[in-house]
Every structure is written in C-alpha cells, then in structure tokens.
C-alpha cells in the first residue's frame, strides 16, 4: 500500500480545503482516523483470503454510507448526526467520506494490484495505470482503459486494469508480507512497514504537514469593511 502515512498526508490537504468552519484539531483527528480504519482489513488476511484491499477498500461501502448520511441529514425530520454533533459533525462526516474515497481508495487504486472496487457485488481487483497525452504523431492518447478488437473474431475487449479476484490476488502488507512465503520458516519474517517508497509519496506527506502548519500560522482575515 502507499503507506497510511501517505494517505494521511493527502487526506490532510483535502480536509484543509473542505472543512471550512469545522476546521479544528478534533476534525483533523477524525479524518485521520477514517484514513486508518480501512487498513484493518489487513488483519482479516490470515482468516479470509484476499481480504486486504477488499473489505475496507471498495466503493460500495462509501456509496452506502454516503446515501445513509444524505438520508439522515437531509431527508429525515431530525438528524441523528446533527443532534449529537451539531453542524460540525455533519461537515466532518462528509469531508471524511471525501477524504476516504480520494485520499485512500483512489490512491490505492493506482498502486500495486489496485483495489477490489465493487466488492462484495463483483469480486475483481482493478488497478489504475496509464498516461494521458497529446502527441504530434499519435494525437490524443490515453492508456488507462485499453480497448482492443480481436483481429480474427472482431470481438471488442475492454481492459480497465483488472488484475484478478480475491482468489488470485494478494496485496503484500506488513501483516502478511509476500516475502513470508519465500523465506525459510525458521528464519524471522521481515515485515516492512513502508512510509514513503517514492519521492512523490514523500511529497504528499510533506504537503499535508505543510498545509496544517501553515494554517496554524494564519490569522483570520479581518471582516471586510
């Protein structure tokens, strides 16, 4: 996984942009917690094959939670969230959902074998990988979704980056490292907790920290005359 630290950095950046009046230390803590929780599915790995990047990493759950939140805050006469946590809670809940989808799910989607996007409805891992460019020789080109036609049968196949199912895909993680299968059972297993494995991941961590620190130094703008 791009480590949880990277998710957290990007989530802080997004949260700072969205929280508005609800921006405070407590709100940031809630957002960070929301970023960490899905990783719990690594612990299910030993019990359920392919659980990591499946149970906590699908779009079905956030869509369901979003619908529930919408129903609670907009459709019901009295909202449970607003009763308990006021408008602050409603704001933080929506921002947490946004951060979960963009800073956690989508970043994982672009990493290793991707995420099990539509689990439990449809069991398949998807990986986002490709380029988008304008070329003087090839025109407008994108390689995220490959559409190929079979030259013989003329059948069109669409490759959106599917990498397999929970049966075939295991995304290496510290609880169940890939390396464990290869090493001698007597040797101690090397569990590696990545923090930032690429320059750009370190960048996202640092930007998140930068934004939070910068906000500390900012004063409220005086009301305009």
């Amino acid at each position, binding site marked *: 996984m791009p480590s949880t630290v990277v998710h957290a950095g990007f989530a802080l950046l997004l949260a700072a942009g969205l929280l508005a009046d609800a921006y405070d230390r407590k709100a940031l803590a809630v957002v960070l917690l929301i970023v960490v929780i899905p990783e719990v599915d690594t612990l299910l790995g030993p019990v359920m094959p392919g659980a990591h990047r499946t149970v906590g990493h699908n779009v079905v759950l956030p869509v369901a939670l979003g619908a529930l939140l919408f129903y609670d805050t907009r459709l019901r006469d009295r909202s449970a969230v607003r009763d308990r946590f006021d408008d602050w809670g409603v704001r933080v809940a929506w921002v947490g959902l946004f951060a979960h989808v963009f800073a956690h799910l989508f970043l994982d989607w672009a990493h290793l074998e991707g995420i099990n996007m539509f689990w439990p409805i449809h069991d398949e891992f998807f990986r986002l990988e490709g*380029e988008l460019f304008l070329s003087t020789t090839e025109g407008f080109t994108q390689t995220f979704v490959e559409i190929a036609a079979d030259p013989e049968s003329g059948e069109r196949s669409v490759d959106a980056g599917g990498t397999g199912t929970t049966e075939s895909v295991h995304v290496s993680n510290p609880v169940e490292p890939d390396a464990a299968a290869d090493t001698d059972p007597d040797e101690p297993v090397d569990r590696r907790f990545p923090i930032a494995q690429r320059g750009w991941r370190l960048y996202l961590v*640092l930007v998140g920290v930068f*934004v939070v620190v910068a906000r500390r130094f900012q004063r409220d703008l005086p009301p305009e005359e």
Partner: protein
Amino acid sequence: MAPTLVNAALGALLAAALLGAAFDRRSVAIVVGAAIAPDLDAVVSLVVPGATNALFHNVWIPLGLVTLLYWDVSVRERSWLRERHGAYGVRVAWVALAAFAVAGIAPELFGLAGANLLYPVHDAYYLVRGRLLFSTQEGIVQTFVAFDSEGPGILPLYSPGTTESYFVPTWVNPEPGVGTTLDAERELYLVRSGWQAVVVASAICLLAVRFIEDAFRGPREGTADDHTAGGEP
C-alpha cells in the same frame, strides 16, 4: 517534467486549503497561475540552453519573493500591498507564493524530472529519490538523503546531471539545445501515472464542491466585487 496540469491541480488544492475567507474565483485563478508559472522556463529554454527546470525551478526566486513580501507586509510602516488590496491581497500573495514553491517547483524535485535548485549559482539538477520504511529486520531504512551521492550536486540528494549533461524534454522544446524544428515529435502530457490522475480528479471535485457551496450560500457581504472595486493595474 511533471505535467503542468498536475502542478495546476496541486495549486488548486493548496488554494482551497489555505485561502480561507479570501477564497473566490479570482484568488484561485491567481494561485493556480502561480503554481504553473515555473514551467514557463521551458519556453525560455528555446533561447537559453538548459533553462528547463532550472531558470524558474530554483530556490532563489521563492526566497527572494518571500523576503520581498515579508519586508513589504511586516517590516515597512506602510505596506504597498495592504494599502492597495487589503488583507485579501496579503493572503492571496502568501498563498500564491506557497503554490509557486510547493505546487510548482517541488513536484519536479520529488522524483519526476528534477529541479536545478541552486541555478545559476551552482549548476546541478536534484531529485529526491529513494524510500523510507520501517523493517522488523533492519529498522528504519531511508535512502532519500545520501551524503555520499555521486554526481555534480553539492546538496545531499541524487543528482542526474547539469544543464550541459542532462536535458528535460518538454512539448515546447522536445530536443536538447536551443531553437526547435517544426517537425519534431511533441508530446503534451496531461497525466503520466495513476496517482497523478487521482490528484487531478481530487482537485476538480474539491473545487466543484467549494464553488457550488459558495453559490448556494449566496453572495456574502464583501465578496469579489469589493476588492475588484479597488481597481486592477
């Protein structure tokens, strides 16, 4: 070099995060403009050899601007910027400056094409490249900062070369050297990898949410019209 679209997206995210009450269409445009400004050195590279990722991708310009802005806003008795554009102007200036450095220059430095940080004082491109992890067998492993790195750099970072030996191709100037031919193959990258697509999508959605919200809330007192009334140069 990182696609300018990615610089713009990062600039937009910073704008939303830091502008606070000064957030409106105009200030976002200024901040995004600042984030993509460093990439203009690719145009200069048509005339100045090796200017791409060097001329505007160094520490001197942001340092100079920070000094200037700090002097004007905090040291002088009467600030030119504050008199002209008020607290709004000061906030936008600081955020634009942050976007110039953090969203414009830094993405090049962190493992995409490299930035010539000390140009023109000392000519070497730098890349923050490596990994940072905690291993149960080896403890903390860190290879971003290396004091014994080879290459022409004097900073403890990986250096791919100098303006002489290392060239960053862009769609403006796809081949080493000054000048360009019309039939050169050009590629304008919008997104080069999955994570960049995620950053761009996040920025678009986040701005959409913020602007739609502002529209629903209706015009607050003292919106954009007030500060444009001061007159633009």
